[in-house]
């Protein structure tokens, strides 16, 4: 498979245009020793769509992400990414199939520089082997130079250029979140799973970040599934929303429909209480 460029439309993107469904999950079930974390869940994300996944704490949202990214193996269910079944795939194979995720608790490569963090994301961009590295061939130098250009483009896009040589652990919280996004974009995957992208950010940071997300979505032709607790944001940007509670999907629909759904209100506020 040729390396798919992060910044220009590629074969892969064209083929994903033909398959209208970016993510298709059918009857996914996972239980941990008697506790059913995800129960018979079905959902789908159409190509180019931004879908929200919400629910109270402990509803199983992050578990869904962990299954989709191959960290947990579900007992049951079919998952297709851009039409391709990914059952039994390892995490890195799923990423190659076009699905990449971010983490709720940021997982950067702390002792590596910002540029190197992004370069790791571009891993499949280059194809030179060990021999080229050991003898520093022209091929090696050319590919590394090309790579650096792409890294600069991404850093510029996400306003990270100033920190290029800084270690990832030295970044401010908001910048760490940006770096994690940049790294995910670098993989060239067209389906992005964002786990609480703006948690812990203030109003203006949140607004900047959401604008950026919409911007890159447009620019790279991405499809997205987003876990987020910030209702204002979810209702504002998501085209469709799934609501989970205790591992079960209790509602789906447009933001408007979800806001008026009795079961959703009960899930969040309890049956009688007034928040």
């Amino acid at each position, binding site marked *: 498979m040729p390396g798919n460029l992060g910044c220009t439309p590629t074969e892969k993107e064209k083929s994903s245009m033909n398959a209208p469904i970016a993510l298709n999950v059918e009857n996914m079930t996972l239980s941990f020793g008697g506790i059913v974390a995800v129960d018979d869940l079905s959902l789908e994300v159409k190509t180019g769509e931004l879908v929200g996944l919400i629910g109270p704490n402990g509803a199983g949202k992050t578990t869904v992400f962990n299954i989709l*990214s*191959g*960290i947990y193996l579900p007992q049951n269910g079919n998952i297709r990414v851009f039409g391709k079944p990914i059952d039994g795939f*390892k*995490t*890195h194979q799923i*990423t*190659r199939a076009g699905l*990449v*995720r971010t*983490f709720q608790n940021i*997982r*950067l*490569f*702390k*002792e*590596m520089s910002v540029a*190197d*963090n992004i*370069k*790791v*994301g*571009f*891993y*499949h961009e*280059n194809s*030179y082997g*060990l021999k*080229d*590295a*050991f*003898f*520093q*061939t022209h091929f*090696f*130098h050319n590919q*590394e*130079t090309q*790579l650096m250009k792409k890294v600069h483009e991404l850093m510029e896009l996400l306003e990270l250029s100033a920190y290029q040589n800084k270690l990832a652990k030295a970044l401010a919280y908001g910048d760490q979140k940006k770096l994690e996004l940049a*790294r*995910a974009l*670098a*993989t060239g*995957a067209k389906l992005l799973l964002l786990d609480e992208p703006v948690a812990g950010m203030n109003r203006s940071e949140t607004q900047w970040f959401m604008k950026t997300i919409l911007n890159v979505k447009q620019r790279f032709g991405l499809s997205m599934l987003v876990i987020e607790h910030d209702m204002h944001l979810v209702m504002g940007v998501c085209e469709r929303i799934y609501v989970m509670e205790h591992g079960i999907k209790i509602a789906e629909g447009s933001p408007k429909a979800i806001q008026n759904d009795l079961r959703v209100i009960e899930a969040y506020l309890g049956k009688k209480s007034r928040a």
Partner: protein
Amino acid sequence: MINKIKGWIVITAIAVGLQMMVTRISGYFEDILVLAGINAILAVSLNWVNGLSGQFSLGQAGFMAIGAYASSYVSMFVFHSPNHSIWGQQGVLIFSLLVGGGVSGLVGYLIGIPVLRLKGDYLAIATLGFLEIVKVVLYNVQCVGGAEGLAGIPQTTTPFLVFFILGGSVLITYRFLHSRHGRALISIRENEVAAASLGIPTTFYKVQVFVVSAVLAGMAGGLFAHYLSYINPSSFGIMMTLEIVIMVVLGGMGSTSGSVLAAFFLTILPEALRPVQHWTGIDLRMVLYALILIFVMIMRPQGILGCREIWDVLPRKKKNHP
């Protein structure tokens, strides 16, 4: 063309220089320097696993033993007629080192696939188990001498070859780290889950690094055998592994230059302390090693250099990176 092999030329020149220097001084210093060089190769090899990939292996002496036995077997029984010309001798030695490294790497591959599914302390104990199994097998294989070991291995290891291989392994390590493969490996050490989620084949890299490490340790074992001309299974016990571990820990896990420096320091130190030892009549070497290990862990667990390299720490001209 010259640019492409510039690094290798420099290493060859240094190795030639050291060879000429060493042969002019006494045999005693030659012994110490050559053994320090071999230890440094071992430390660099273990640093690949314990420092760069963030695993923890205690089996390095096992790979060293495999390399030592395989290469000795080749130079003793495959080329039985003794070769008197220096080029012939070196040719045979290089070939047997490659075989030793290759066999060791193959074993590393076969062991690595199952064992590297483990992490941290479990991996440490499992690799220690591997070391014990290697020893039991060597004790029971009569064609390599069993418990008596192998004697009369041609004494063909030269300082040049030791320092060339050492220099080569440092250069390879450095260039590996500054390539996409090295970045992938470090990302696995930093956060395995995140690395996998960015499309890095984590298992592939962990096994690959284990193999590289085994090859280097196997070649060091071959050099060791062809220097001492006598080996037996108990030469490659847990003490040998621990000595290598101490070098890597002291130098800083993840620092190649640190491992090399620590290897030289820890090989030369006991020799420098010989008068004290003579005076007190106590073998202080291992006690000292043990104390170093404990104190480094308590005072400076990242080792002397941490993950950095000596050239990152020393003041220098502005970097002109390609």
